């Protein structure tokens, strides 16, 4: 195998590895609630935004 072909292969494997790692991390059950929380919070009523002078942070 030429150097070039090896480099291509290693790079592809590296990308596949990172990809698999990200999936494994986020699809881990212990992170489920934290990762999925924003999709429920975004549905909450947002018609009344707090006053711009306030500095309360929720969540």
């Amino acid at each position, binding site marked *: 195998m030429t150097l070039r072909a090896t480099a291509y292969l290693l790079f592809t494997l590296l990308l596949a590895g990172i990809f698999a790692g990200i999936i494994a*991390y*986020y699809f881990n059950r212990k*992170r489920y609630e*934290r*990762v999925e929380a*924003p999709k429920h919070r975004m549905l909450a009523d947002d018609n009344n935004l707090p006053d711009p002078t306030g500095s309360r942070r929720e969540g």
Partner: protein
Amino acid sequence: MRFDSLYEKPVLFAIAAVVVISVGTLVTTFIPLFLPSTQPVSPLIKPYSAVETEGRDIYIREGCNNCHTQTVRPLRTEVARYGDYSRPEESAWDRPFLWGSRRTGPDLARAGGKYPDAWHYRHMANPQAMFDKSNMPPYPWLANAKLDTSLTARKVKTLGYGYDGAEVARQLAAFRQTVTAPTYPSAQVRSQVTPVGLRGEITELDALVAYLQKLGRDLKAAQKPVAVSATAEAAESKNPYAGNRAAEEEGEKIFKENCRSCHGEKGAGGVGPNLATTARKYGGSDGELFDSVAVGRPGGMPAFLPQLGKDRVWKAVAYIRHLEKERR
């Protein structure tokens, strides 16, 4: 740091996004900028002349690249239709590149030298007069505008074409002399489309035509020896369709589609010479006529062999013979 806290830090998130988009950018776009193999330079491909530079800018201004490509792909039918495939060296002087993305009209990478200037003057003024099914828009106003050369010297300098303002002035004067001279081969058609007041000047159309004639010219010049050896028939060969009435009729159809726009109805002449005659510049034997059609002649007769094939070229020759007879 936990990875999912990234979604709580917008600035960090933005930086992460920049890093992620940079990887592909670096590899496919940035690094190739510094590899000489991406844009090789060949001494055979010359920079544009002053007039060609201005013509190119008119091509850009009018957005010709929206309908015409300038890159022939290495595909058999494409090479047969347009000519040899495009090489990276050919684009070395192109800022911007003009390869285009859509062929509403044909590719122009090999347009240079294919037709005489007169063809372009007539075609730009009224394409439908030459090809009634064409949807090429007419651009009659280009001949009504004097070419603005006030920036030419600065343009050439910016583009690094390697000649100075004095040379620009010399080239412009020489070009003006050429196109306005009565001996200019396309003088008659040029004066038909150019208003009286501008016949002594360089018009925008003159510059555009000069640019179109440059496209692919240097590559063709470099390859000339190859083209000559590809001549397909010897002067003494005989037309297999000589006197064949059916072949002459088929030849007439081929003539109407491919030859009429230049050589006129029944070969009476136009941009190209009168064909209904026995007085022929390049010889009147079957073999010589075949060569004229198949591999073309200097001054704007294109090569039709790759497009039409031997059989149909012979049929076209049979029809030209028929025109000769009709004439007598």
